[in-house]
């Protein structure tokens, strides 16, 4: 049975959201998604899934706090302690197993409520072997960028090209928080706070909420003439410790892609997609993920960034939404954000960012520093 996305709701991403509580932000996102799908959550939804991390929320046992603002009171619901694509995978499984016909998947960021985000990232480091040494935890990204660039043959100028492209294209995305006319030169000269990683290589936190309505084939066809089908989905984690993970090639992305490609029967990824949305919480991550997903040959992702292959109209338009660098880092909602952007492209509803002839897209997420976990989804329309 095919599973399709029939509702997309995204609140505009913003550096702060002083007027809404996090619950109201979720309600706002849910309203948009339910209106898009044309459903009433109190009667039309079989199961609700939220994706969140307690430390990002600021209180414990997040799933106890979620039913009311989604229309999910007294209904089956649970929280996935992970990125939105991991939640989407749960939705697919619930539908394909026959447990539910229609499932809602939500994730959000109210990062502006977090006063000590860096401390929370540091808290994600091993408490015995890493955290006691102190230091700004972005050293993990700086070390990885060094390992990746040297191990793959990509260059730091390529990373600057990614920064410029994603910040600039975000100017055309009405939901983006950080669109700007940043140039390659500017990116390459920004302070090297975690050298080789520079300030502009890192995405900035944003608030926002993404809610998707997902349905089995029969239900989906009743709701929309053209659902966006989830053709494949996968998720994986690399070895958990900093010391034992692969610092050059992100194994979590490779393995998640293999799983999704197997379901979607994708044999030649580099020639299979009209659009890619891959995690770019740090600029080098976009290049690293493109190679891990076999969308670029080893050592060639940077060349693609430099030559315009990743831009709208290029060989493989990548992160034309602006990604995390341009739209903002919405934490566990980052994967769902990418799914939403790809779904709008596949529906032909991406506004000024719309590309011609988008029939199949690949989306990839990473849970962010210091994790080595993420997911991949293959989306398509037609057939």
């Amino acid at each position, binding site marked *: 049975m095919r599973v399709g996305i029939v509702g997309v709701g995204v609140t505009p991403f913003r550096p702060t959201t*002083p*007027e809404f509580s996090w619950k*109201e932000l979720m*309600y*706002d996102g849910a309203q948009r998604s339910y209106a898009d799908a044309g459903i009433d959550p109190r009667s039309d939804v079989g199961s609700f899934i939220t994706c969140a991390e307690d*430390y990002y929320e*600021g*209180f414990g046992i997040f799933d106890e706090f979620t039913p009311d603002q989604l229309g999910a009171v007294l209904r089956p619901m649970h929280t996935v302690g992970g990125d939105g694509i991991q939640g989407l995978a749960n939705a697919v499984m619930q539908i394909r197993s026959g447990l539910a016909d229609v499932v809602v998947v939500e994730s959000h960021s109210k990062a502006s*409520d977090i006063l000590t985000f*860096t*401390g929370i990232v*540091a808290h994600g480091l091993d*408490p*015995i*072997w*890493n955290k*006691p*040494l*102190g*230091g*700004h*935890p*972005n*050293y*993990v990204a*700086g*070390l*990885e*960028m*060094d*390992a990746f660039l*040297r191990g793959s043959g990509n260059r730091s100028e390529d990373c600057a090209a990614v920064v410029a492209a994603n910040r600039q294209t975000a100017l055309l995305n009405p939901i983006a928080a950080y669109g700007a006319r940043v140039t390659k030169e500017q990116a390459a000269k920004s*302070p*090297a*706070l*975690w*050298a*080789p*990683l520079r300030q502009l290589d890192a995405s900035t936190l944003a608030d926002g909420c993404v809610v998707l309505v997902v349905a089995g084939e029969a239900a989906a066809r009743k709701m929309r003439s053209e659902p966006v089908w989830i053709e494949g989905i996968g998720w994986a984690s690399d*070895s958990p*410790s*900093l*010391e*034992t993970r692969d*610092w050059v090639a992100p194994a979590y992305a490779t393995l998640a892609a293999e799983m999704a490609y197997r379901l979607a029967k994708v044999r030649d990824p580099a020639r299979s997609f009209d659009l890619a949305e891959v995690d770019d919480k740090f600029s080098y991550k976009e290049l690293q993920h493109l190679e891990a997903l076999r969308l670029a040959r080893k050592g060639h992702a940077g060349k693609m960034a430099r030559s315009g292959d990743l831009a709208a109209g290029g060989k493989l338009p990548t992160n034309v939404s602006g990604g995390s660098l341009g739209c903002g880092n919405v934490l566990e909602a980052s994967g769902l954000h990418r799914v939403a952007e790809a779904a709008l492209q596949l529906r032909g509803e991406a506004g000024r960012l719309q590309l011609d002839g988008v029939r199949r897209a690949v989306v990839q997420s990473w849970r962010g520093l210091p994790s080595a976990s993420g997911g991949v989804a293959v989306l398509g329309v037609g057939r």
Partner: protein
Amino acid sequence: MTFTERTTDARSFRHWPGNVEADYIYTSGIAGERFFRELRDHGRLMGTRCSECGTQWVPPKLFCEECFKEVHDWVELPREGTVGAACIVGVALDGSRLSAPEAWGLVRFAGFRGGFVHRLLVTPDRARAGLRVRAVLKPEGTRTGAITDIRGFSP
């Protein structure tokens, strides 16, 4: 105030400051205990070796990540390791600029899976992959049995 009638006066927004009281002790475990005792008492860096697949682990593990078997054998690390990746950090945890940037490195040891992510005790221009380094320990008698007993790694 409702969703249809929203606040536009920024002065009226309210928030409630809060913090999470969350203090812990972190148990080193059987493998960590042995590693930190060896470090504190003898100034030795030790790893473990899986008798099933032969993989040598540092930090030491009592279970093999590859074959999931219990690991019993202990082996000492070579004196010298190699920097696998380096990073020069210019900001402190609170975001303030450091007056002297500090070097961090991923230090690998021949024959071992893993290594240490630690400070490199060199000037930033010397911190680069390929550098051969040794652990610099706090003096005997001042070591407490923690990863901070290693001050860092230097050539």
